[in-house]
């Protein structure tokens, strides 16, 4: 009886190890795939949006989005502001280093992120923060 217990315990320990390794490998592959599919998007923002979008069906897509344009493209940030306004009815309030815009948007899901990237090849990087509750506040520190 005692022997049987020991064998069972050892077997379950290796199962746990195998499960852990498998989970880590799956997660690494998932991260690698997400980086390949969305190379211009900050991974934390992408994963947060993915989590909210899949776990909370009524998530309103509240995202503080920061858009960085190619410094070599000589972008007109005022014109880019207009483009963002036309698209999301929200005017970016903040221009940094003449190449970054910040805008708080709602109904921004992964699909919209992809559409934004596909619509403007001057964008080199998207980052920011997603929040569960809709808010117009700019207090997020992303």
């Amino acid at each position, binding site marked *: 009886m005692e022997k049987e217990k020991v064998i069972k315990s050892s077997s379950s320990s290796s199962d746990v190890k195998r499960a852990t390794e498998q989970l880590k490998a799956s997660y690494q592959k998932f991260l690698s795939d997400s980086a*390949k599919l969305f190379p211009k998007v900050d991974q934390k923002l992408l994963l947060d949006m993915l989590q909210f979008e899949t776990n909370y069906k009524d998530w309103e897509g509240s995202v503080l989005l920061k858009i960085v344009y190619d410094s070599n493209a000589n972008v007109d940030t005022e014109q880019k502001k207009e483009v963002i306004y036309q698209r999301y009815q929200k005017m970016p309030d903040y221009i940094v280093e003449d190449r970054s815009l910040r805008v708080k948007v709602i109904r921004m899901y992964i699909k919209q992120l992809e559409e934004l990237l596909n619509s403007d090849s001057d964008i080199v990087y998207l980052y920011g923060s997603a929040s569960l509750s809709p808010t117009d506040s700019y207090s997020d520190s992303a």
Partner: protein
Amino acid sequence: METDKNNVIIEDWQSIVNKPVYSSNGKDIGIVRSVQPEFFISSFGPVTHDQYLIPKTSIQTIKNGIIYINEDSDYVEKNFKFE
């Protein structure tokens, strides 16, 4: 395994996170915060971080855990800074 024009070989890009970055003229550009497929993000400053989007191909060499890039600080400020 990835190489760039400087033939720097970095097998694990995550290993450069938290490493300091210096320009070609020896100015501190900050610490690597994250790595994207084509760029890495470096941030500088204790309170309000200046942030830089630096192409991976800019890495000239890595010595004693310090990343040296090809561009000087003026170029970095003008072209890589985004916040």
